């Protein structure tokens, strides 16, 4: 990209990572540069795909940056962009919105809704709220949080309205969007005069 950096995704099922240095001269001697890693065997070159690195080598690397390819042709040095490797998950296991029952409040009280999703490790999710006061009410606080647990990561978005108004009554939706889909949970809020 414009920063001279490409991101290579590693999913849980990946057995290898390919650094996609492609060349137009099939028998060109292309070297792979990478951060200090323990084990080098098993790294292979394919002039149609690039350098292939076995997953265990990536997992044992201290850092996942500084990967790039270099070659010399006609006395001139060539260098690829820099590659950053990122472990990425994709699964959203479940989404919950607390409290699950309808919420009844008096004008002036505080409303707190907690949207929690359990996701596969390293899964990035965009958590967005839709609610009656979204356009008008600027006194809404939304706090995200990510907590890797023992078997999955818990992602949370907490919506707080410190002093509710009658116009804050209505349906509240939490939309959780991952790479491939969006899941939504909803609850009802009723504010009495």
């Amino acid at each position, binding site marked *: 990209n414009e*920063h001279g950096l490409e991101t290579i995704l590693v999913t849980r099922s990946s057995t290898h990572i390919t650094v996609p240095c492609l060349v137009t001269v099939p028998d060109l001697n292309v070297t792979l540069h990478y951060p200090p890693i323990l084990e080098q065997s098993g790294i292979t070159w394919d002039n149609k795909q690039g350098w292939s690195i076995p997953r265990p080598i990536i997992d044992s690397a201290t850092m996942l940056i500084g990967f790039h390819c270099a070659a010399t042709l006609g006395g001139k040095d060539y260098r690829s962009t820099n590659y950053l490797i990122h472990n*990425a998950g994709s699964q959203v296991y479940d989404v919950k919105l607390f409290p699950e029952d309808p919420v009844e409040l008096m004008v002036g009280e505080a409303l707190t809704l907690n949207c929690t999703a359990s996701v596969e490790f*390293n899964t*990035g999710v965009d958590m967005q709220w839709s609610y009656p006061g979204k356009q008008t009410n600027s006194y809404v606080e939304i706090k995200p*949080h990510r907590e890797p647990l023992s078997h999955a990561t818990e992602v949370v978005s907490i919506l707080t309205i410190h002093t509710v108004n009658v116009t804050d009554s209505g349906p509240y939706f939490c939309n959780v969007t991952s790479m491939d889909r969006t899941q939504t949970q909803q609850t009802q809020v009723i504010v009495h005069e």
Partner: protein
Amino acid sequence: AYLNLDILKSIESEWRKTRCMPREVCIDVGREFGAPTNIFYKPPCVSVYRCGGCCHSEDKQCRNISTGYLSKTLFEITVPITQGTRPVTISVANHTQCSCLSKL
């Protein structure tokens, strides 16, 4: 009976090593800044100094009495990846002086 000086010296040394002072720690950037749940940082942590160590009374706690800020450059990955990866510079609190302050 007199206290063995070697014991006294080793205890004094341990007390000095565990006193309340700025200590190097790893701070998870996403958590420190409450980043959205679709953003990852590379590296995920930065190294700064924060007050740590032990006070010799339960009503005291080791707190910073002076703080600076360090600039750190990281890569920020936004998912979905199509939004790309970019270097960002953040400013992280770095404790420079600590003291055992009263909790009450």
